[in-house]
């Protein structure tokens, strides 16, 4: 599902690489927690995995496709087709209501989103009452769950989450984590979650600890 070989990333003006010769693999139906202090390269790795950044050296293979060989346009297509991302900040469009935010991906891809699926997910997360509300009317926990519904509704093969629980209280954080790991199992998807929280990271099948290079 996800395979990383000898991956090195060094920014041009930096004297140290963010990470060097990083290798790991993740099978379908498995989850991995990326742990580490701030600046250890968790977001950089997520950026590389979703094709927004390019590695100094090494190889990333996602769903049997080598990212190295893809153009920017192809990476974008791949991302839209197979991948979904969850971010720490709430990424809802402020002037779209909840249902419009959830169905937003269908505007840019050929993925059809049934309203019945959306309703099912909203009921499952106890959010049916906010279906037509706007983001400013939601709590942070509700908004993050809406983001998660939008991520999962397109049934992605790969989910990359960049500290999705960073702004949440522990119960909400645990709930989000649980949802992601459950999705991974039931849909045979690969999930990588960057987190500071070791207790949550332990819920994943694998843990990858990143250390800042200058701290070594």
């Amino acid at each position, binding site marked *: 599902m996800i395979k990383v070989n000898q991956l090195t990333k060094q920014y041009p003006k930096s004297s140290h690489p963010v990470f060097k010769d990083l290798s790991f693999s993740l099978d379908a139906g498995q989850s991995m927690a990326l742990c580490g202090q701030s600046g250890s390269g968790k977001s950089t790795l997520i950026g590389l995995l979703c094709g927004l950044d390019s590695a100094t050296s090494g190889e990333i293979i996602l769903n049997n496709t080598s990212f190295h060989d893809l153009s920017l346009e192809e990476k974008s297509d791949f991302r839209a087709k197979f991948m979904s991302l969850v971010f720490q900040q709430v990424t809802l469009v402020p002037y779209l209501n909840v249902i419009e935010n959830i169905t937003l991906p269908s505007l*840019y891809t050929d993925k059809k989103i049934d309203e019945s699926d959306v309703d099912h997910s909203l009921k499952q997360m106890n959010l049916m009452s906010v279906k037509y509300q706007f983001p400013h009317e939601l709590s942070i926990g509700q908004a993050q769950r809406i983001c998660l519904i939008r991520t999962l509704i397109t049934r992605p093969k790969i989910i990359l989450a960049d500290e999705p629980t960073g702004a949440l209280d522990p119960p909400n954080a645990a709930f989000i984590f649980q949802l992601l790991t459950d999705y991974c199992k039931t849909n045979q998807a690969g999930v990588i979650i960057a987190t500071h929280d070791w207790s949550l990271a332990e819920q994943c099948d694998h843990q990858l600890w990143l250390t800042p290079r200058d701290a070594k």
Partner: protein
Amino acid sequence: MTPQNTLQVSLRIGYQQWSAHRLALFMISLAFIMLILIDAITVSAERHIQEAAKHISKDQIWLSFYGRDFSDEHSRQIHQSLSTLGRVCPISVNYDHLPFDSSQGVAWIYASSSCMLTLNFPLQNLNTSFGYAFSTFSPDQINHLNLRHQNQSYNVLGGLEVRNPALRNFIHATHIIWVPLLNTKSLKPTHFILDHTQASIDEIRATLKNAHNWEVTSPMKIITEHNQPNQDLLFFFWSLTIIAILSGAANFTHIMLSNIQSRQPEIALRIMLGAKAHHLLLQFIIESNLVIFICLAWSCLLSPIACAALIHLTNLQLDIMFFPSLRMLIAIFSIGSLLSLYPAYMAKSTNPKLLFSS
């Protein structure tokens, strides 16, 4: 998201933009109001000229020589000069017969008065069983006239200059014999109608100007001159509009750029969800045009008031316009689309990495 949703959402954004930048965007509405006024003046003038032109023969020229004596020799010379160029109406200083043949004379009177009616001169309508012809003679001089043409009786109205000084300007001569007269030798014929082709008008004009210093004009030219005050007003409005458009365009571009700056996380999210450059370009061009549409809607609401005020202040013959013409709409939305290209390009260049936590 269905197309209906997309339109609904875009309208929502457009309305939010309008609400957030009401004052700056009202400047654009003002520019549009002035454009509608310009349109109204231009369209009204064009329509009036077209309507007026329907009542005149385009191959006519009018010959005037103001207040000078007109001898038999003059008549002969003119006749000779013009007869080589085509058919000429009878011209005579012998008042024992008509200077025009009666049918053409009456037709010309009818045409001229219809033309003037079209230009909103306060004349009586000719569509009555008893027609009206106009004369510069005083009313007591015209009692003996009994004009008939094509079984239509014409009541000759005298004292034209007293009735409406505007007519005197329109017909472009101080003393005009409108109605052919018998036995009125104290009057001098100073105005003639000539049937001729447009191609020869310049030649006739040059011939008569060189030989006799007489002025030759055409009905179309007179009607166009009648429109001159509109041109001055148009120049004034265009000057104001250009200033308003330039400041409006600067405001608009600034608003759209700051809008994109403040919506960077949203744009980054759209890119992460699969939005391509053309999706973003299209979205921001649509949004910009919707903002312009809202400005335009306001100006459409206010422009009839502006038209009415202009009519009241200038006594202008103006059709009240509620909407700009198609050509103006195309121009407005083309400018709007052009102005939105740079902000849309900036949106397309947003780096989605800003969504990451560090």
